[in-house]
């Protein structure tokens, strides 16, 4: 669902922030919200501050009510069904971004927030889905709030198995593609590439005990346990038909 084109981009961000706010409030059982006291509530609920311009906000709320995103009952507002769907997308984008930054890039909490609430407005559906797949459909954000599910999560059987894993965590006998090798043992890494073990190549886990044995092309290599944690592979997502 797209927002009406008549809404300007600057207000689109405000709308999305408000949708996110209403969603978060609903999660905490605080619906309906008092439209007159929104600014304080925004600061309370949202982990990041938004424009505390009261007049602008009342305009935005008015527009959202007109477009059927919010239901107004006197001073109280709550999400309509259409608004709920829209809010779900925004919240999903925001929280997925948080996981991406937090888990994979180890970004500090402060920049996590500010970046996530910028990125959430620019991700399109395809990228969001790719991020979700890459992170293997995480159930919650770093703050512990649930990430709304989407079709891609429901379609995937492997909801609890991450897509990118250290090679030692592959099921025995499975072939996956090497995505990166994360190591401080540079000399070792370069020797591995002389055996043809490098990003982009398929690798098969043969056994993990008593030593790790992998197969790359026609080469069978015995490696130490640490290497099993350093070589990251991307599993082929197995979608349910």
């Amino acid at each position: 669902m797209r927002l009406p084109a008549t809404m300007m981009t600057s207000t689109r961000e405000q709308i999305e922030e408000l949708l996110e706010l209403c969603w978060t409030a609903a999660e905490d059982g605080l619906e309906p919200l008092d439209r007159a006291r929104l600014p304080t509530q925004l600061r309370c609920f949202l982990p990041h501050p938004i424009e505390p311009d009261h007049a602008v906000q009342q305009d935005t709320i008015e527009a959202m009510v007109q477009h059927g995103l919010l239901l107004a009952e006197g001073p109280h507002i709550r999400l309509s069904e259409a608004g709920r769907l829209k809010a779900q997308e925004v919240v999903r984008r925001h929280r997925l971004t948080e996981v991406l930054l937090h888990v994979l890039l180890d970004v500090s909490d402060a920049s996590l927030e500010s970046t996530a609430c910028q990125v959430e407005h620019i991700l399109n559906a395809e990228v969001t889905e790719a991020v979700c797949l890459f992170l293997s459909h995480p159930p919650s954000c770093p703050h512990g709030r649930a990430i709304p599910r989407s079709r891609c999560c429901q379609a995937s059987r492997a909801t609890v198995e991450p897509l990118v894993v250290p090679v030692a965590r592959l099921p025995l006998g499975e072939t996956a593609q090497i995505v990166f090798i994360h190591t401080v043992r540079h000399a070792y890494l370069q020797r591995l590439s002389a055996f043809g073990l490098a990003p982009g190549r398929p690798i098969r886990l043969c056994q993990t005990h008593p030593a790790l044995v992998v197969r790359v092309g026609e080469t069978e290599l015995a490696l130490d346990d640490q290497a099993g944690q350093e070589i990251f592979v991307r599993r082929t997502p197995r979608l349910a038909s």
Partner: protein
Amino acid sequence: MTIPATVEDAATLIVTGNPNVGKSVIFQLLTGCYATVSNYPGTTVTVSRSSASVEGRTFRVCDTPGLNSLQVSSEDELVARNLLLDDHAIVLQVADAKNLLRALTLTLELAEAGCRMVLDLNMADEARERRMAIDLEGLRGLLGIPVAATIATQRWGLERLRRALPDACRPRASVRYPSVIKDAVSRMLRVLPEAWPARKAFALLWLAGDRNILEQLKPRLDPASVEALEAITAQAQEQVSSRLGRLIAHARLREAQRLVNRVVTAEESAHLPRLKPLGDLAMHPLWGLPILAGVLALMYVLVGDLAAQHGVDFLEERVFGHYLIPAAQWMVHGLVPWPWLQALFVGEYGLLTMALPYAFAIILPIVGMFFLCFGFLEDVGYLPRLSVMANRFCRLLGLNGKAVLPLVLGFGCDTMATMTSRILDSERERVIVTLLLALGIPCSAQLGVIMAMLAGRPLLALGIWLGVLFAVILVVGQAASRLLPGDASPFLYEIPPLRMPKASNILIKTAGRVEWYVKEAVPLFFLGTLALFLLHASGLLAVLERLGRPLIVSWLGLPAQATGAFLVGFLRRDFGAAGLFMLQRNGMLDGVQIVVSLVTITLFVPCIAQYFMMVKERGWKLANLMAGFVFGVAFLVGGLLFRVLSALKVAL
């Protein structure tokens, strides 16, 4: 440039390639000169040289240890690399046809080194078995060098390979490096002296941070150039977040992959070789152990029982005892009038009555059978699977699974195994392996005699002997790994596929090893016997026995006659063991004494040949230190064991 322009000027042919692709077989076929061939990476650890006549021209041919890259990590690879970079030779790269990607990665590197070369895709049968088709003509076109296909073990394609050798030339193919590498290399080429042949290879190795190349090049360059090269490297590294070595390796791999994609067509349904399941079972966490137990049991039956019992009985009692020795005695008594000279040949310490039966009746059948079994295991490709099984145990000794190879080879011959320690990645590991080989790994000859002595005893005796050795190895390995600086280097070892062994290769290899044994050990047996004879005749032996009394009799609880066995043990440990064997046969050792003497002689000083190999590989100081340490440990453990066993009144 000083490289000769045509093949005529150069007469050296270097056989190189990835490990375990059959370089030594090709070397044998080209030169007709024997080289040990096995199915595991690391069979060849030194350069063998011979000559070959190809198309009416004579080449000096060098067989070299295998390499995966010019960027090397172990000593054997370093030797091969230096030969490739320094010599203006023709290079014959032997490749595993089914593993073309790795071969071509090396080809591209050799091209950067400016080598004139021929590529041979060996083991073409294994590629065919896996339904891989390789477009040789296409590969020739892409690389711009002669490409041949062979099945060396069947001599298939050898003639075409020979004919291709004179056409060796520099490969056309080159790697497309990222611009940061390309720029750095061209700037470095302006600094490196024009006269150097493999300048581009040197530059790339320098950029990749190869330790050895830095050490090698720095003394050959003026300080200003070194500074310039270092600055270029640092600048290049600043521009990218990834290590330069990584960028280089990946660019090469991509280029090789591109070549492979153009010439190899593989059928979708990958066809697994027949022996694959067995190969997997041999290192399976569960099934690997029964298989190992089965292999050991079979070897015990063949070596410890068939050869050491029946073979020795037959040769020692029948052949020597009934025929040869009486005949020798009769002849010597008839021909030599002086009793003292008679004693030299047929006395208690006679050359014909002691040295000859020791060498040929006791040791030879045992080592012969052991070499046969070992050759079989080597050819099948079982040994590398042991390194997977034993990786964890090796970690306790401060080593990794790769060290299993020299340690297991030690059961064949500790001297050769000491040399094989070159395949290990750090000096620390080489030192630990050298020490353990000198201390606690009995060689086949000694092992056979020990098995023969324990065969008639209760199983507990074998258990105690094994347990004490195991404990000593564990304690000393642990201590060494803690005392020596550094950490265990990361484990990385290639597991070759199991292969059907070739009877002819096993037999030739066994014959070669037996011949080597006769040449190396037998003279020492005569020398030792002669020394004992002289000591005995001059009365010095009695003096030594008296001097050794506190050690041999009081401390170890052995009869004084055992002194002689320990004396010759300085020459060879198996000689010493054979001396104990004779004492046992003559009923001079009881159960406890057998176990104590065996533990002591097993741990006893390395044999002369091994000692000199230790000196060669590790230096005088370390070799002497180790020999002294081993001597001390042997007597300490032997004496303690005697006291414990006597105190517990163990019946053995």
